[in-house]
């Protein structure tokens, strides 16, 4: 039985960017039409009933963010698509943008209409240069059909979209760093307040959502929140786009129902691991998230079940590691990534990511001491407590989870 779903991804591979008419024939832009007809409160009510959560990692309830954006009194505000997708193992936004660009545009227009913004931006990572070019083509075509521009579809709502390029810095996915970089500055996070919802792009209130979040809103508006919610299993609502990769027979982007188990994802969707073993662990959600050992593969893929165990849905990536992968080697790649991507603004993260990587590399060479391992925990604590942004705060998560689930194996690498 096929365990995947086709709601968010229903139009994948069914049209190319020049074929806007095909998108419309398939049912595209009907979500926008419904929104324009029913009004902003209907949109917010629908995403609340669908229990849609932000897909950028933090899983923040979508309706809350949209409601506060709508309630901002400022006459000028912006809506922004975060397409900086940079977590190793994550590539679902790539497919959403490349295979169904108009749905992202549609979701963004609905967001502008709902919150009262007249301009939208799409911040696309530099590595997806071709996708940005294609997006510009789609924006131009949507404008030629009056889905963008002045008085959209005969209403008094006007809206435009610009695509913007990143420049190879993972930290720019963080909201404040993203805004800084769009201002032409170095993309370092700023101290939290004010949030970008109050003062963001060009100092105006800016609502930032992940690519998939906008795609979900467009789908919910198109099919109704019930149709979306019904896709889930065992009472869980909706679906999630995942990036399945690593030691897996069929890597790729899949849409899965919430409530499916990790085991089903690996075996029935991914076709099992390449060496036909069960797999040893997965990392779900991105480099900043916990490792899940094979003993927990029966966990249902839901926000609540994962949270209870300290796991994360995060960005939706699932990296599968089989028995040949040493945990310490895996941690080395994760900690190396954070060392490379730390922006250096605050000391706990700048120094901490570097020291953690050093100690883990000593573990890889079987020459770390007990003291070094203790030091690793001290560093992790101070990073989580006093780093300025999410990067530093979550960089130690994978390592700590590895010590929880694979302590024996890791301690074999410690010199006696």
């Amino acid at each position, binding site marked *: 039985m096929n365990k995947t779903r086709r709601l968010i991804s229903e139009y994948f591979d069914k049209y190319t960017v020049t074929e806007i008419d095909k998108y419309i024939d398939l049912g595209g832009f009907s979500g926008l039409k419904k929104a324009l007809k029913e009004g902003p409160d209907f949109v917010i009510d629908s995403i609340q009933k669908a229990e849609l959560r932000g897909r950028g990692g933090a899983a923040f309830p979508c309706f809350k963010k949209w409601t506060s954006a709508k309630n901002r009194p400022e006459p000028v505000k912006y809506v922004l698509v975060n397409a900086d997708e940079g977590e190793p193992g994550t590539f679902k936004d790539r497919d959403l943008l490349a295979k169904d660009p108009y749905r992202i545009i549609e979701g963004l227009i609905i967001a502008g209409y709902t919150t009262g913004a007249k301009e939208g931006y799409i911040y696309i990572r530099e590595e997806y240069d071709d996708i940005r070019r294609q997006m510009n083509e789609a924006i131009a075509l949507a404008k030629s059909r009056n889905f963008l521009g002045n008085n959209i579809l005969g209403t008094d709502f006007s809206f435009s979209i610009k695509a913007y390029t990143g420049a190879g*810095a*993972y930290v720019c996915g963080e909201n404040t760093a993203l805004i800084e970089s769009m*201002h032409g500055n170095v993309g370092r996070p700023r101290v939290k307040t004010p949030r970008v919802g109050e003062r963001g792009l060009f100092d105006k209130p800016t609502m930032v959502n992940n690519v998939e979040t906008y795609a979900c809103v467009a789908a919910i508006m198109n099919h109704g929140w019930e149709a979306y919610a019904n896709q889930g299993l065992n009472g869980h609502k909706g679906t999630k786009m995942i990036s399945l990769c690593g030691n897996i027979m069929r890597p790729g982007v899949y849409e899965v129902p919430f409530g499916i188990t990790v085991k089903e994802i690996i075996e029935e969707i991914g076709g099992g691991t390449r060496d036909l073993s069960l797999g040893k662990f997965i990392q779900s959600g991105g480099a900043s998230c916990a490792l899940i050992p094979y003993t927990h593969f029966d966990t249902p893929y839901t926000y609540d079940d994962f949270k209870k165990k300290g796991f994360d849905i995060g960005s939706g990536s699932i990296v599968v590691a089989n028995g040949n*992968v040493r945990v310490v080697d*895996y941690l080395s*790649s994760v900690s190396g990534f954070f060392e490379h991507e730390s922006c250096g603004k605050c000391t706990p993260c700048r120094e901490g990511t570097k020291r953690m990587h050093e100690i883990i590399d000593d573990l890889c060479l079987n020459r770390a001491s007990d003291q070094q391992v203790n030091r690793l925990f001290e560093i992790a604590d101070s990073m989580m407590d006093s780093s300025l942004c999410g990067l530093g705060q979550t960089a130690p998560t994978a390592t700590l989870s590895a010590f929880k689930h694979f302590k024996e194996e890791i301690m074999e690498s410690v010199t006696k």
Partner: protein
Amino acid sequence: MEVNKERVEEILEQYDFRQDALVPILMDTQNLCDDHYVEEETQRYIARRLNLTYVDIYEVSSFFSAINKAPKGKYHIQLCDSSVCRINKKDIIEEYLEDVLGIRVGETTADKMFTLEHTPCFGACDISPAIRINKKVYGHLTIQKVKQLLAELRGAKDE
């Protein structure tokens, strides 16, 4: 590489000389360079035209990894060294590349044809191990495939 000032002006105009477009301006200018690097003279020119200081430009270009800090070979090879590519044995590809090119990661060949570097995940994990050559992605790499790729690039040189 020093860039023809008229070409730079075209790019600047395209962005209305906006200071907040500094990053895309630098990247577009870099794309004009065979060595993938905007040298100081041109950077200073861009600074003047945008009413910025050279230090402003320096700060931004040293922060973003897509803006190169030094000239690269004609073919800039970026090998992903993030988690998924490591699981899928990018080490074998790396050793082979170092071997045939006669350089280590981080170096450029004497004839300035190839630069080999590590880079974090660029979202091609489903076809890992993967590399980018002048930003174009190649995946499902095997030694055989890399050999063929290099031969094609070397062939292109002779044309």
